[in-house]
């Protein structure tokens, strides 16, 4: 069975500060990993994805994530946040031998950026 754990339900940071959102996964092999962002009353937007290769993945809006096989983690980072980064962030996992019908989401981390 596969699972995704986002241990932080809420994170509050000041504008201009750095941000790290944690994601741990459980899967028997190396999965495909994703980070999505959901702004209020909107659908999910893809921030970045990891399939293979370089463990550091660059995404949109200066986000990046680092895959660690030894730690079973895929943490998301941003060096300097803006108030518009306030949103809910979802980590997701897909087995490498299936299409999107096997995607598993974490519970999400709500980020509040204080001015």
């Amino acid at each position, binding site marked *: 069975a596969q699972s995704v754990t986002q241990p932080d339900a809420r994170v509050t940071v000041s504008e201009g500060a750095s941000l790290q959102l944690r994601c741990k996964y459980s899967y028997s092999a190396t999965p495909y990993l994703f980070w999505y962002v959901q702004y209020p009353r909107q659908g*999910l937007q893809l921030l970045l994805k990891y*399939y293979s290769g370089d463990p550091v993945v660059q995404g949109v809006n200066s986000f990046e994530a680092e895959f660690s096989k030894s730690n079973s983690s895929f943490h998301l980072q941003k060096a300097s946040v803006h108030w518009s980064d306030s949103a809910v962030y979802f980590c997701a996992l897909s087995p490498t031998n*299936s*299409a*999107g*019908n096997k*995607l598993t989401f974490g519970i999400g981390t709500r980020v509040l950026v204080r001015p």
Partner: protein
Amino acid sequence: AQTIHQWPVAEIKAVGSPLSLGCTIKGKSSPNLYWYWQATGGTLQQLFYSITVGQVESVVQLNLSASRPKDDQFILSTEKLLLSHSGFYLCAWTGDSGNTLYFGEGSRLIVV
């Protein structure tokens, strides 16, 4: 570029009334299409997926049904709404890699 459109944007419906939510994707032939449900403040639960016209697989039974009448259209419906159906419904499709989901803007449903 591909675009995905969901309708309606929001609905307030009475318990026991019927429901139909729609999703249309343009710019992508033969997409895999998905319906997800999100409770307020919650994570996403996959409901249905379809890889071709006329074929729908159910993932979770929530007294809902889905149909794919056209290659670019996916419909979610029920004859009788329950209070527990309230939430945010998201339609999604997979790209050429087959693994990355792209979501629509969602339809918010409040059942009273």
